[in-house]
């Protein structure tokens, strides 16, 4: 019986440069590099102290949590437009429970998280069982939850609960003198958990499989329907959690909170190197994406002379850069003529 040795190199040698461009990890490397460069620039120009990176995490903690949820959905090739509305809804629900109904904070938090997960579950079922396109299903979710928030409370509900206030002000000191907030810690924990789930559980690998080739995943006997619905429920849960973190930030329940946040989350995910087509990407990338966006805002506000609209233009330009980069990564193999 002959033992054949197979060379791992493909038949026609691919130039190193092309292979580099085709590596799906390229965008995340570029993001990290960009972050470092930007930070160095900012540090040089505005003398960042060690609290600055911590502040980055603190000020963007809610977006990090939401972006994690968005990452799961986008990894399966879907999209979730309801994130911002669920965040707003969660803050309102929290405000109602804690302030108006004097529910203990812990219990209120649980209710909110369950509500978020259920909302996501609902959208997931619509997407999976009725084949409503994710865009439309989550768009309906966007309207539904935002509308529900406004119906529950027209105005902002201040939360004066002592527990909430003390959590919001709680500082976790880091070696070196800097400190983190509870929100930032939650964000980091969520990221760590997400990394674990995506890379060390069967469920996580199935998420990647579905994004890679849903047809194949089905034929390989994977529980595709269950996984897809679970992913949207997870995103709903993360949006709710993000809402809770946001409450710590604004200390109130605001039905107009987080309008448009889903787009920030999606932008962060894209900048972080996750492909919108699914199957490729890392949660760490999304974290980096949020930090990049946050750093841009910090630099621009520190600059002082630049106006806030440059943030938008800057973010748009960055998006453009990364998308074109992604195209070079995935665009190989268009063998047909124009």
């Amino acid at each position, binding site marked *: 019986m002959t*033992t054949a040795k197979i060379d791992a190199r493909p*038949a026609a040698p691919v130039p190193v440069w092309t292979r580099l461009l085709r590596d799906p990890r390229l965008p995340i490397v570029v993001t990290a590099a960009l972050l470092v460069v930007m930070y160095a620039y900012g540090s040089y120009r505005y003398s960042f102290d060690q609290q600055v990176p911590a502040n980055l995490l603190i000020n963007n903690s809610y977006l990090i949590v939401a972006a994690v949820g968005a990452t799961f959905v986008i990894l399966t090739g879907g999209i979730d437009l309801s994130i911002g509305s669920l965040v707003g809804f969660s803050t309102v629900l929290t405000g109602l429970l804690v302030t108006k109904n004097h529910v203990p904070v812990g219990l209120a938090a649980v209710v909110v998280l369950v509500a978020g997960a259920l909302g996501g579950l609902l959208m997931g079922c619509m997407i999976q069982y009725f084949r409503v396109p994710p865009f439309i299903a989550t768009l309906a979710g966007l309207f539904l939850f935002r509308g529900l928030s406004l119906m529950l409370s027209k105005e902002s509900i201040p939360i004066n609960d002592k527990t909430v206030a003390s959590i919001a002000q709680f500082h976790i000191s880091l070696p070196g003198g800097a400190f983190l907030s509870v929100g930032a810690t939650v964000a980091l924990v969520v990221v760590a958990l997400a990394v674990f789930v995506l890379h060390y559980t*069967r469920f996580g690998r199935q998420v*990647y499989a579905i994004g890679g*080739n849903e047809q194949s*995943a089905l034929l390989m*006997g994977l529980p595709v329907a269950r996984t897809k619905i679970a992913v949207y429920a997870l995103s709903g849960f993360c949006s709710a959690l993000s809402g809770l973190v946001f409450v710590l930030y604004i200390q109130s329940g605001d039905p107009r909170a987080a309008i448009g946040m889903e787009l920030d989350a999606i932008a962060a995910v894209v900048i972080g190197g996750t492909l919108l087509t699914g199957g490729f990407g890392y949660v760490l990338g999304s974290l980096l994406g949020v930090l990049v966006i946050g750093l841009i805002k910090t630099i621009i506000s520190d600059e002082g002379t630049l106006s806030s609209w440059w943030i938008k233009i800057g973010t748009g330009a960055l998006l453009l850069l990364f998308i074109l980069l992604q195209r070079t990564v995935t665009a190989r193999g268009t063998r047909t003529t124009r």
Partner: protein
Amino acid sequence: MAEDFPVLRMTGISKQFPAVRALSGVDFRLYPGEVHALLGENGAGKSTLIKVLTGVYELDEGTVELDGAPVRITSPHHAQQLGISTVYQEVNLCPNLTVAENIFLGRERTSGPVVRWRRTRREAATLVAAFGLEIDVSAQLGSYPLAIQQLVAIVRAVDLNRADGAAGTKVLILDEPTSSLDQDEVEVLFGVIRRLKSAGVAVLFVSHFLDQIYRICDRMTVLRNGRMVGEHMVADLDRVGLVRLMLGRELQQLEELREHDRTATGETVLHAAGLGRRGSIAPFDLDISAGEVVGLAGLLGSGRTELARLVFGADQADSGELTVGGKPVSRRAGPQATISRGIAFCPENRRAEGLIPDLTVRENIILAMQAARGWARPIPRETADRLVARYIAALDIRPADPEATAGSLSGGNQQKVLLARWILTSPKLLVLDEPTRGIDVGAKAEIQKLVVSLAGDGVSVLYISAELDEVLRLSDSIGVLRDRTLVARLTNGPDLTADQIMQTIARGAQS
């Protein structure tokens, strides 16, 4: 090494679809440890039989017995659980994951909920080595060529049931496994297959590459037009006999439809020199004169479609040059350029590449002509209606309703709609890829008559068909392809027989 009792026995299998009877009373049996070839041309029923076996389709009549016990296979997953694993030509794996992940997807080695990657990778490496392969299981599957991906799919398929304590894979179906492999890769695959044989796995080898079948298979079953026409030991049937069985030809002259002498006018309509595309078709030369009908003969996968697509500009050639009507066409130019110079192309896969299913018959018919005119010059409605009505009548498109949705028509009528579309553009060269596939006998004849009349009007035709009798009937000359190379150009005449063509095809199968 066949034992006495078949591991799989299918009896009297029939499957009916709305337009066609795909399988009629097919019997099939498979013994453990044998490599069994399933042969047949397009439309013969191979794919349907496989899909019935793997639970994609429900059979209408007949029984399936696995190890003597009757079974009703309800889904691909069920088939897998019973021990019937399939590796498809498309390699249904996830290219974004690693080799080890793909092998164990859904059943990774875990302690509790946590996946143990080191153990998973180690076991994957062991499995892979047991097949005699050296693959880095930590590498991304997509970074490997298709040949390797296929082998990984086989490793997964064979190992699938062992871990669950079930019986293990009894039947491994390989659907066209060598279509995209080169010689060396085929050797490796055969090595793996031989190992499986000695392990007692029954391998069902679906392919059309005759030389490979003669090398690796023990027994073969031939299907034609939904019926089983023969089951033979490979050693008992020679190549020519096999081809004859598949194509159903008697060794006799075929009647020629043409009533008059058609000499090519000499004006070269198409001139291709060294036109080729890596991995698709070897560089070829092809000259077609006005009014000439050139047939392309060869088995599935021999490169006929690829040749046609290069000529039309649907795919980009890597080498060579193309001149149409005396004017050169850039290799990078797309279909618009060739269409404007007078080439028309009816693709083989009408659903995916031909029709716009949601548009009406009328819209589909006028599409190419309209595209050539540009968006600003619409074809006047009366003219369009008149032309469409004329073609509906001429080609007997049913239902004769120009506003019917094209996707709702039967395959034959869809083909006619496509033909109408292209003939409307008054092409100099009409490329037809399997125009009569899946069409009833009457329509087949109509289409062939149409080709003859077009040729009489000075239109050249490049005619691809698996039906040799059609090719012989219509062509002035016949290009023979095998294994992605144009190997011969035979002038058609009273002396050329189907047998000779088959010999050319079959002979090429010997390495």
